[in-house]
Structures are given as C-alpha cells and as structure tokens.
C-alpha cells in the first residue's frame, strides 16, 4: 500500500505531498520524504558507472526504513517523485509502471496554463487522478 507520494521540485522544494494513511503520521512521512532527498542527491551527483541506462528516470529503491520502502523517480526537469510504501515485497517493474502513470498525471497538471512553475500543485483534478492511480496499485501488488 502506498502511504505517501511526493513531488519535489528541482530546488528540493516540495511541490506536492500527499499521504494516504488514516493515521496522523504526516510529519513522519514528511521526514522520510525529506531524508530521501539525500539519497536522490547522491544518486544524481554520483551516477553509478554500471547503471544500465543513463536515461532511466526510475531511481529504484532509495532506502528501506523501519517499515517503509522509499522509491524515487527523477524527471528530465529534475523534478523528483518519491513514493513511500509499506509493501515490503514489491517488484521494481510495478513501481516503474506506477511512476510512469504518475509522471503523465504530473505533466498534465503542470501543463495547466494557470499553474505557476515552482508553485505547489493545488489542482483538485490532479489529486483525484493521483488517488485513482494509487488505489489499484496496492491491489495489484496484493494479488
């Protein structure tokens, strides 16, 4: 189950953070997302020579903490997507797929002429679309 999704701008500014849990752990998830930026920074600054494709946007598992796994995704415009999930056994392909869908949703959201780049995404449509992507994700992996 996805507990948190975040979009972080190229200056490491949060553009969108949405948690999908009932419990009040927003702060904890904020911390996790914030900390994962360290890993992304590190991966971006020291790309592994052995990495298969340079153009790969999917950063893979950033780090596992306590009960969570954090995945990252970096767009060409240096916007980071961060996914926090409680599913401990999860296939990279699923996550990659998810990020691709999420990326499309994000692109649509920022293509809105009324959206100011660098500003937080407040579009309700985006939120609805994201939740529609998030829901089946948990189900797929569960099945």
């Amino acid at each position, binding site marked *: 189950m996805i507990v948190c999704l975040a979009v972080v*701008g190229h*200056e*490491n500014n949060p553009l969108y953070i949405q948690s999908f849990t009932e419990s009040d752990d927003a702060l904890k998830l904020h911390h996790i997302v914030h900390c994962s930026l360290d890993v992304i920074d590190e991966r971006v600054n020291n790309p592994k020579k052995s990495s298969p494709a340079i153009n790969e946007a999917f950063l893979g598992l950033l780090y596992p903490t306590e009960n969570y796994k954090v995945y990252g995704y970096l767009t060409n415009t240096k916007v980071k997507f961060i996914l926090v999930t409680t599913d401990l056994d999860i296939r990279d392909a699923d996550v990659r797929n998810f990020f691709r869908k999420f990326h499309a949703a994000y692109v649509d959201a920022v293509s809105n002429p009324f959206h100011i780049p660098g500003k937080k995404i407040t579009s309700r449509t985006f939120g609805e679309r994201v939740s529609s992507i998030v829901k089946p994700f948990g189900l797929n992996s569960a099945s």
Partner: protein
Amino acid sequence: MEPDASIETSSMIRVAVIPISDVTPLLFRDYAAMLIRHHTVSLSSISSFYTEHQKSPFAHQPWESGSLRFKFILGGSPPSPWEDFQSNRKILAVIGICHCPSAPDLRSVADQFTAASKTYSSSLVQRCFAFCPVDSQLEDESVKGSNLILFPPADRQTQEFHLQTMVQDIAASLLMEFEKWVLQAESGGTVFKTPLDSQASLSSEEVIKAKKRRLGRAQKTIGDYCLLAGSPVDANAHYSTSLELTRLTADFFWYAGAMEGSVCALLMDRMGHKDPVLEDEVKYRYNSVILHYRKSFIQDNAQRVSPLSFELEATLKLARFLCRRELASDVVELLTATADGATSLIDASDKLVVYVEIARLFGELGYHRKAAFFSRQVAQLYLQQDNKFAAISAMQVLAMTTKAYRVQSRASIGPSNDAGQTHADGGKVHHHSIVSLFESQWSTLQMVVLREILLSAVRAGDPLAAWSAAARLLRSYYPLITPAGQNGLFGALVNSAERLPLGTRCSDPALPFVRLHSFPLHSSQMDIVKRNPAREDWWAGAAPSGPFIYTPFSKGEPNNSNKQELTWVVGEPVQVLVELANPCGFEVMVESIYLSVHSGNLDAFPVSVSLPPNSSKVITLSGIPTNEGLVSIPGCIVHCFGVITEHFFKEVDGLIIGATQGLVLSDPFRSCGAAKFKNVLLPSITVVPSLPLLVSHIAGGDGSVMLYEGEIRDVWISLANAGTVPVEQAHISLSGKNQDSVVTVASETLRSALPLKPGAEVTIRVTLKAWQLSKTDSDAAASKGMPGSSVRQAKDGSSPLLLIHYAECADVKGNKNLCLAREPETVSAPPPGRRLVIPLNICVLQGLSFVKARLLSMEIPARIGEACSTQAQLERGNTEQVNGSERHADRLVKIDPNRGSWGLRLLELELYNPTDVVFETSVSVDMENTSNQENLSDNISAEHGEPKTRIDRDYTARVLIPLENFKLPVLDGSILGNSFQNNGTSGSRNNSFSEKNIKAELNASIKNLISKIKVRWQSGRNSSGELDIKDAIQAALQASVMDVLLPDPLTFGFRLAKASSGDINVDREVKSCVSGDSIIAHEMTAMEVLVRNNTKEAIRINLSIACKDVAGENCMEGDKATVLWEGVLSGISMEVPPLEEVKHAFSLYFLIPGEYTMLAAAMIYDANEVLRARARSDALDEPIFCRGPPYHVRVSGTR
C-alpha cells in the same frame, strides 16, 4: 556503547584526566589541551624510559615504527561492566592536573590525587601534573616520593616539551605494566567475565563451561593488551588462538570480540594504508563480527543485558571505516540497520549514542537531511531526560539541524557569509536567497524543529535561544500559526526577554517586517547639484556635450546605471521612509527603531511606534550624517519584544519576491493591506562635506501672489544662508512655464552680496507681470463664474520657477586645489553645488477681458472757415503740437470743427470686466520713437495721467483710440517699398516680390504702431497693469491699415479767402472760423481750395470743385442750380510741386441759405508707381482720382 567508537578504538590506552584541587574549568581545559596533543607516542621515543625487567611477551614489538595511542578521558568515567571483555575500556592510567597557585599545600594535593586515583581500580600508572608552582613549592621536599610532578613556570614551548617527556615516561611505565600483566595472565588464574555470563549461582555445568572458555578469553585479552602495547603482530597471534578456542567452546561473544581485535591488529599493521582488498577483508570480517554478536544473544537475560549494543557498535565501527562517498550505499545500509536495531535498545543513553553516531556518519557522508533527522531523534531522547543539561544538549543538537532544515539562526551563518551577501553582486545573492526560499517550503518540518528548539531552550533556561527560536518561528510561519499559537509565541518572546539583560542583541529578527519604502528627495530648497568642473555654468550638468542625444559611451558610466544615487550633506538631517508590517494577531510595540548604519557615519534617531494587529505603517526614520564618505544602510535596528535585532531590507525584499513567485507562504505587507510591492533599490549614498544652504523667503508671505491678467508687481525675495559655509557663487535663472512673466530679476543685488556668509541675508527684487489666461482657462473660469478655477490653475505648475544655483567655492579651479589639500581621492570632483528652487506662485485672475476691437472711421465734415484745416497737413509737426496742446487741456480727443475728421479713424476697444473689482483704464499712445517734441508731450501726458475710463464689475466699456496721428507725413516710395524704383525698368515682373516687400514693410509699421498703443489699467490702490491686446488691435487694423497709416497723395482743403490777407499762415489760435455766419446768402463769397501734394514728386492734376446741397444734388450745374460761381470750378489743370500747396481761388454765390457741401476732386495725370500703388490701381493707363473730404458750408440767410 560509547561515542566515537571506531575499529582503532581497541588499540587505544584509556587515560583519565582529572582536575585536582580547584582548577578552574578554563585552566583545566587549557592544560588538558596541551596534554591531548600527545595522543600518540612513538615507541622509539620511549625506549629511553623503558627498561626490560624480564623477557617481554611482546616479541614482535615494532620499536621503530610502532606507537602507543592514548585516549584521554577528561574528567574520567565510571568503570564499565565490559572491562574484562575489552581491555581498552579500562582506565589504565590516571593523570591529575593541578594548578599550584590555587593549591598552596602540595601535600594535600598529593593526598587528594591518591584518593581520586583509587576510584580507578584498573589504573596501572598514576601521575599528577602540577603546573606553575611557586618557588616555595618547588623547594618542598615532602612530596618527593609521591606521583606529583611539578612543572616549573616556563614559557609554553618549554612546558609542552616537559609535558611530552612526562607523557613518554607514562607510556614507558604503561608498557612495562602491560608486560607484567600479560606474563601474569598467561600464567593463569584470572577469570574473565562479562555481564552476559549469568551472575547468579554458578551451576556446576556453568563452572565447567567457564573453565573451558577461560583460555580462549585469556588469549583474547592478551591480544587486547598486545594491541594496547602497539604490537599488532603479537596481538594477531593471540587473537588467532583465541578465535580457535572460542569457536570450539561456542563462546560467540568472545569470538566476535577476538575477531574485532584481529581486524584492529590488521589495520594497525597496515599503518593506515587502505586498499580495496583490505576494505573487503575488513568488511568480511566485520560482517562475521556482527553475525557472531547477534548469535551470542541469549534469550534468558535479554531483559537485563544484551550484546545488541556491541552488534550496533560493531556496525557503526564498520560504517565509520567505510564512510566514504563512493561506498555511500553500503554505509547507508549499515546505518539504516543500526537505526532499526537502535529501536530495540534498552538503555536510553545507548540509544542516544547510536543516534548521535548515525547522525554524525550521515553528516560525514553528505546526507545532511538524514543527519538532521537523526539529530532530531537525539534531541528528542535528550528531551525525554528531564534535566537542564539534557535540555541544553538537545538545544545544541537541534541547532545543528537547523542548517539542513534551513531555519538556522543568522548568528550561525556567520559574519563572513553575511558580508559576502552585502558586497557581492546583486544576481548571486538573489539566487542564494531564492534557493533558500525554495527550501523553506518544508514548513511542516521546519516548524517542528523550531518549536523543539524553543521548548528545549525554555527548559534549558537559555532565554536568548528561546527568543531567537520564537522569533524565527513567528517571522517565517505566522500564516500557518493560529492566532492562539501566535499569542503563545508572543508570550514566549516576552517571557524570554524578561530574563534577558536589558539591551540584549539577537541576530534573528522577529516582527515587524521592515522594508524600505522610499528615500524622500531633497526638498527643492536643498537640491544638490553635481558640479561640472569643466564648465563655467557648472550646474548645466555632466550631460554629454556632443551632438548626439545618446552616446553609447555614457551608457557604461555609473551615473547612468539604474541605481539611484543620493547625496547627503554632513550636518543636515536626512530622512528615510520605511514600511513596517505586523501580520500577526497581537499588537507589536516597537520600543525603538532606527537606521542601522554599517559605515558608521550617520547618527540615526530612534523612533517608537506601535503596530496594531494586522497592520502596516510607513514611518520616517531620520539621522544626521556625521562624516563624509559612503553610507550603507542595509536595514534597521529594531528594539522590540525586549531584544535588539537588526532587520535587513534585503531579506524582506527576497521574501516579497518569493511571495510574488508563490514560493513563500504570504507577503506580510500585502496581507496587512499595504500598498502593492514596489522594489526599492538601495541607492548608493554619499555624504559630502558641509555645503551652504540658502533659504528663501518671499516678503509678504510665501503664498501665491494674486494678480490680474497683465498686472505688474514687484516681489521681494529674501535669501538667507542657513548653512555653515559661505555662498561664494550664485546664479539666478528661470525655468518652468510662463517664464516671460518675470520681467526683471535683480540678480546684481545677489551677486554684489556675495560671498554670503552663514547667517547673512540678501533681498532681491523680482518684477512680475501676470500672463494672459489662455482661452480655455478663461472660458472655464467664466463658465464656473468662480475664481476657484484660477486658484487650481496656480497649483498645477503654470508658475515660473526661480532657480538659484549656488556653491561654496566660486572658482572651481581654486576649489580643486583646496580639495587636493583636503582629500586626494576627490580631486576630480569638487563638492557639489546646490540649487534653490523658488516657485513664484502666481495666481492669475481673469482681469479685464477684451471683447472686440473695431476700427471706426469718423466722417464729420469740416466747416469751411478762414482757417483752413488743411493746415493740419501743411505742417505736420505743428498739427501735432496742436493736438498735443489740445490734449493738455482736456485730455479728450477733440475734433477741430474746421478740420473735420475725414481722415480720423478711431480704434474702438470693447472691454468687459468679469471680476468683482472696479477697473480704470487709460489709453496712451507712446510716441517715443517719433520726435522729441512728441516725446515731450507724451511725458506730459504721462505726468498728468490719461483720461480714465471706469469699468464697473460685470460691465462693458468701450475705449476709443484715435489713430489719425499715425499718418505718415509723406507718401513715399520708401514706405511702399524700394521695389518701385526698380519697377520702372523691370516692369511688373517684380510685382509679386515687391508686394511681399510692401507687406513686410507694412507689417513692421503696424507693429510699430501697435506697440505704441498701450491700454493701462488700474484697480484699487496697488494693482495696475497693462492690457495685452496687441493681437486684437492688429486684427482690427489689418484690413484698413493702408488708410490708417498712409496719407493720401493729395489733400484738399477749402477756406474762405480773406480779402485782406492772402497769407496762408493764418494764425491758428484765432478761432475765426467758428461758425458759418460769415457766409451769407446772396453774397459773393470768396473761397480758396488748397491742394497739397504729399508726395515727393510734382503732380499734375486736373482739379474740379463741386458743391452739393443737403439732398446731395449738384447745385452748381443743371437747371436747378442754386449756387452761382465765379472763376473756374472744373478742369483746372495745375501742377503741384512736391510737398507744397497750391491754391485756387474762386467765388460762390449762394442763392438759398442752408447747408452745402463742398467737394474737391482731382484727376492725376501721369501717376507714378507710388501713386498707383496707393490708389490700388493696376492698370497703367487708368486715371487716378483723388477726392478730398467734404467740407461743410453753412449759408445763413440775410442778417
């Protein structure tokens, strides 16, 4: 669990350093610092202190390359329960530090030290270092035998050398003790226990197990000592044995310990060289260490003790060993595992240590956010301990996290960075501030951190830190804090401030937000003008003097950059407007706010202001420059909430820029309803030395001068030098609209008063003449019927401005020398001059308004009398005199009845008085240009005053101006243009050209004429002026100007011929031709017709005379002729010489009394060009008729 653990820790000899008898912490730290420098002592250096008592167990000790390593523990530490397991945990030596001046009795010092070192049962060597002993103490023999070592007072270098020797001595002693211990241990008997081994009632099984394990444990411990003794090879040998034995006895805990030791030995052997193979080896072995520590976990005593801390410690050691960017992922994995494991640690302090270490390692790795996260965990652990010191620690740890969360206090950013910001180029700073704005969006995290800092600071009793945290929280996140929360923070600020001494400074500003609003320009009274030394008129500016409006070279000059420049003067108060905003829900009381001047050459005056909730205010901050130079005003010093802070304008600007880009939560000024954001650039401000200061004062009040149109009035302006420097150069010029309304300025008065000393005053006269209101203005005024419109007009700058440029040094060059002596840098730039702008506030009221002008021709026929009116034409000057004298008499235009007024034309001006005062007008014709005589008459008339026409309010009056006098005496070609002379030869070809010439000539004459006509008016006692009606007159005259200006070529006159006197020059004073009673019907009346040639050439004419009766019928011819005549009356050919008069006599016999009109007419033969032009005839052969004015003859009946 211990902080700072690394693989090498196993090889360090732990030495407790304890203060003995009253050493101030500062001194203790100082001495300890000296000691700590000797943490590594090479074996080669201690060989001189070392004596081999028996065969050393450290067979492979590397005497050349090896070393002993010390770990000094300041203040000592309680014994660890794991001492047996890891010998490096033992305190093996104790060093006491004593400051002799504060401990006079050395014996008691020795005793104290002995007592103190007793608590360290494991210690093998004890020494007490006593610094700075006095001579008496040095001679004290009583302590000779003890461990007390006196360091005689010496310079620092000597002392350090002494200390080093002592440390080497300790090292040698320790080495010998180690040897002793190892030999003892090998011989057996020692039992090695850890808390892991069950403490209670050893069962027989346990005892056997312990016995079995003893050997392996002993070997491991010996290995430990070998490591401490700096002999890795020996250690390795013992560890290998231990590994074998412990594995056999399944003593996994000790196995792991031995493995750790062996890794340490390996590293020691390699002397710090690292290579991937070694790294892999270490990694492999440590993984096994971790694994075995985990294996040694015993469920039984898990509640009491667990090897988990060793496992974590080992993990951290490995992580520290690997901690490099390239291996980040490995390290992160290890650290994550550690963090996960730490949650199950029982001991809070162990947990603390683990988190501290994790945070440090993450920080080292460059994972600042993670480091911050774990630091926060540490702080939370500290906060769980409910004591002040823990709270202080928590606060300090949190302070370290602020950088990662971008909520750091400005104090921690450091002055160097700050200076860089202020001096760096605009763009870079901007970038930096924007980035920090981006990061500042993690508001959830940032607020939590700040709140925790506030909490810990309150608990730690650090009011300044609490104040700073509350200030940062309030300033940055007020939109996210509820009003109740804001009030809470307000309370925190106030409470903290109460605990702070008065006048405490904090680097973090709280409220209010302060931004630069504007720099009020110098009032026009004090304008400063840069002097252009190259020019005499220095105020003309440094504008490019070339022919081009734009020169690319001037573009690069600093003056032309968009940055504003301001000049302030030493000793003259300046003002800066700043805007304050309080977006919070409580009232902010700013106790004082003043400009913060980093350059230190401005005395700023504090202001106190109170800001109600959600409000903003623009206030004026003032100061007085004290020294010349540049002034930098980066912000304001604000004393608010009991603490003094500095608020920088740049930060608020960045904040507002961020707000416009949506990066910051909200714009504090906008939310308070302040005006829209405008970016005020901080100008570069220069302070110049004192300048003179002229202050103007208009006599009779500085209000506007109310003038009616055309009114002329003098205004007295007094100028005083209010500065401290004399004015040595001054120049008056005019600017603004309606400059021509200033008639004269007595600039000589000012010039003669120079140099104007400080305090001196000069009064100059300015003569003003009110201008005409324009058509639209007057219309508007009329439609409103109010003078209000004209008052409004006075405001919108239609008044002229009097500019006075003045400066200190009259001679720019001389000044240069002066400046050279004063300050070599400003040689090129003389001190600026100043400009005083005196607005001449003229409020023009609509005065007499001109309605229309008409040219009237009067046709009053003349009477025929003995004195003929043609005399008027006879001698021009004389008639003028007559006229003049007439005017003397009664100031009215009198018409000579004998002369008639055939040629007289009157200009009628219709004037309307729309004002509410009475005007009196008088018309004068100035004849200054004609002759002296006329001048005289004019003067006389001026003295006596013209007849006045009174025009009441809302009435219209007409003023008549006789124009006859303007006739020129001679009809001349020169008047009609020179072209006539050519015309004869070149024909009509030049006609158009000549006509043009005529026009020009005429226009000139008209102008001349018009300028002579003056309509003066007077209203009340002190308003007087002149009506500007030139245009109107010109328009009226334009059509018939020829007739007005030019005389006819011939003038005709009739008179009664006196039988007695044939003389023409009749005495004019005789009023003989008064009435018509001299002509009686039925009598022969002798008459003369006079023909005068007004041209310069003789004219041949054919004269004819006609007489008409009242009905206008010719009464001399035809059937009903009523007049008989004698002489010739028609077809009289005669030639009139130039400028002369010819008379022709005849007689008439009137049959019937009544009114008759005599007319003379002439046809001119061979008219020349001049005549033809005058007659406006084009045809060359057309005869020209000349008609005289009608003369009235009144024939009375018989007497």
